[in-house]
C-alpha cells in the first residue's frame, strides 16, 4: 500500500449523491482476477457512450463529453469532491481499486457507505468527511475556478484551500497510522496471534459445536 502523508492535487466535482459501487465500476469488469487495471473503466457507464467489456482497448471508445472527468480542465484530477452516501451498495473492492488506478488519492463527501469506507482506506485512499455546507461551498468554488487545487495534510488533519483558509477534518487514528506508514493490517493483526489463539482456546471449549466437521 502507498504511504499517504500530504497530497496537493487538482479537484474534480462529481455533483450527485448516492453514487453506488455499480456505477463506480460495473459488474462485467469484476471478472478480472487481478487487483490492477480497473482505472480505464472507472465510472464506465458515465464516461463512455457505448457499453464496455473487459479486455477492450478503452482509448478508442466514444467518450461522453458531458461527464466531468472527460472535461480537459479536470484531466489529472486526484481529489474527487462528491455528495452524500458515496460508495453505497455492493462490497466490491474493485471500486477503490478503480479509483486508485485512475489516479485518485482523496475523496471528499458529506458521508460514505460503511463497506466502501473500509475498503478505500485499505488501499491507500484518504476519505474525508466534511459537512454538507462545507461540501456545497467547495463544490461552488471548484466549478467556478478552473485549476482549483487543494493541499491535504494528513498529519495535521487539515485541508489548505487556495484562498488561504483551512478546513479541519477527522480521521480514525488507526487508519491514519496505517495510511502514514503504508501498512498492511494483516501483519499488524498477526502480531496479536497469541491473543487470538488464547481467545480461540476458551471459545472452543465454550462453543464446541462451532468447531466440527459436517455430517456427510
Amino acid at each position, binding site marked *: 500500500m502507498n504511504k499517504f502523508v500530504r497530497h496537493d492535487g487538482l479537484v474534480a466535482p462529481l455533483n450527485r449523491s448516492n453514487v453506488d459501487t455499480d456505477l463506480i465500476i460495473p459488474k462485467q469488469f469484476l471478472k478480472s482476477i487481478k487487483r490492477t487495471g480497473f482505472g480505464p473503466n472507472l465510472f464506465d457507464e458515465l464516461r463512455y457512450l457505448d*457499453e464496455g467489456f473487459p479486455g477492450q482497448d478503452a482509448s478508442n471508445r466514444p467518450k461522453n463529453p458531458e461527464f466531468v472527468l472527460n472535461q480537459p480542465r479536470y484531466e489529472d484530477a486526484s481529489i474527487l469532491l462528491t455528495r452524500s452516501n458515496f460508495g453505497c451498495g455492493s*462490497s466490491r473492492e474493485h471500486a477503490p481499486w478503480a479509483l486508485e488506478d485512475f489516479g485518485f488519492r482523496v475523496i471528499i463527501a458529506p458521508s460514505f457507505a460503511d463497506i466502501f469506507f473500509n475498503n478505500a482506506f485499505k488501499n491507500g485512499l484518504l476519505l474525508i468527511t466534511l459537512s454538507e455546507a462545507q461540501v456545497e461551498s467547495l463544490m461552488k468554488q471548484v466549478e467556478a475556478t478552473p485549476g482549483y487545487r487543494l493541499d491535504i495534510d494528513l498529519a495535521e488533519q487539515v485541508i489548505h484551500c487556495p484562498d488561504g483558509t483551512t478546513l479541519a477534518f477527522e480521521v480514525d487514528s488507526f487508519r491514519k497510522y496505517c495510511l502514514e506508514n503504508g501498512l498492511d493490517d*494483516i501483519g499488524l493483526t498477526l502480531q496479536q496471534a497469541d491473543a487470538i489463539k488464547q481467545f480461540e482456546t476458551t471459545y472452543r471449549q465454550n462453543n464446541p459445536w462451532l468447531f466440527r466437521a459436517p455430517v456427510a
Partner: protein
Amino acid sequence: MAGRTLYDKLWDSHLVQQRDDGTSLIYIDRQLLHEVTSPQAFEGLRLAGRRPWRLDSNLATPDHNVPTTLKERSVGIGGIEDEVSRIQVQTLDDNCRSFDIEQFSINDERQGIVHVVGPEQGATLPGMTVVCGDSHTATHGAFGALAHGIGTSEVEHVLATQCLIQRKMKNLLIQVDGELGERITAKDIVLAVIARIGTAGGTGYAIEFAGSAIRGLSMEGRMTICNMAIEAGARVGLVGVDQTTIDYVARRPFAPTEEQWEQAVAAWQDLVSDRDAVFDKVVTLDASEIEPQVSWGTSPEMVTGINGQVPDPASISDEPRRRGIERALEYMGLHGGQNIKDIHLDRVFIGSCTNSRIEDLRAAAEVVRGHHVSSSIKQAMVVPGSGLVKRMAEREGLDTIFKQAGFEWREPGCSMCLAMNADKLGAGEHCASTSNRNFEGRQGYGGRTHLVSPAMAAAAAIAGHFVDIREWSFNPERETA
C-alpha cells in the same frame, strides 16, 4: 447495568481485543467465499507466504458468475463459454484445492448463491459471526448471527487471522408490529422500511428487526429482510432467535447433533435483546399499513405502493432531492404522476439471494398456476437459489407450473440480479425483479429494474404490467401433468 441488545451480545462474545484507538479484533466463525471477491485475497496470501488460520471455518461456492443454462452447465467449468468468467470460476476451484478449502463446485447439487447455501447447510448457525466478500451477507443475521459484508482485503485478513478489525456500530431497532395484509410479504416490509429511512438511514448501525410482524415470518422471510439491510446502509441486519430459528437449523448437515445440539440450543436461548436493552435509534412501522411495494427509480428508497404514482419532481422543493429524482426518471424512462400499474414491462426475473428460496418459488408458482406469461413479455425466468432448492421445487412440481406458463427454469446462481453472466436486460428494458438493487446498469447496460416480491413479479409476468396481488385470481390447485 442496562440490558444488552442482541448486537451487543454477539459483539461481546467475539471480542478478542479492544484497542486504545477504538478499533477491535472480532473473532470470525464462518467465512463464505465465492469466485468474484476471493481471487485477489488468495493471491495476497500466496505472495505473503501465509496459510489460512482455520480451514474448517471456510466454505466456498461459485455463484456470481456462473451460467444458468443447462447447455453451459452440463459440462462443468469447461462449459462456461465466456472465457474471462471461466478463468474466474476455475481460479476459485484451484484456490480451494491448493488451500484445502471445502467447496461446493459448479455442478455439485449443493452449489448455489452463498447466502442461500450457508443457511441451507446449517453452515450459518445462531450466535456465529459470519463474513463474506459480498454486501448481502447481512442475510445471515436472520439467524441471530453477526454477519458482515466485507471487501477483498478483509477476506484476506479473515483467511490469515480469523479476525476482522471493526469499530462497534450503533444499535437501530426497527419494530414492525401489527398484522400484515393478505399477500404482503417480507420483501414488501423491507422495501417499506428502506422507503422510510432511506438508503443511508442505517449507515453506521446494526439494525435489529423485531415486532410481531417479524416474529410471524418464516426463516426465508427473515432472510429476505436482513438481506436488504445493506440497501438501507447497514452492514448488519439481525433478528433474535426463537423456535422458528431453531426448527429451521435442526438436522442440517453442518448443524450440531446429539449432546452438542442440546448444548447449542441452550446457549442460543440468550440470543435476543434484553427487555431493558437501549437502542440508539428506534423506528416503528405498522404492518397493517404496508401495501405491495414496487420501486420506480434507481435507488432502493425510490419505492411506492402498487396503487401509487411515480413522484412528480416539480412538487419537490428540496433541490438535491429533486435533481436525484429527475435523473432517476430520465434513466427509467418514466414521467412524474405515471401510475405504477401503467409501467410497461419487458422481462421478469425471479431469483437472487433476496428471493430464490423454496418459499419464494412456491409463492410465485401459486400465482402462475393455470396462467400464461403475457405475450408482451420477452422473457420470464426463474433461477433457484441452489441446487437443493431446485431439486425440492422440482419434487413439488413447481418447475412444471413455471414451464407450462412460459417461464424459463434455470440452473442456480446470482444470474440477472447483477448480470455478470449472460442473463441481462437490454438497454431501455423494464424488468419486474425479485432482486435487491435497482441501480443504473445493475441488471444490464441501460436496463431498468423494478424491485418487487416474488408473487408480484409472477403476477406482472402474466399480466404484462404490475397488478395488485391482493386482487389476483388464483387458480385452485390441480394436476399439472
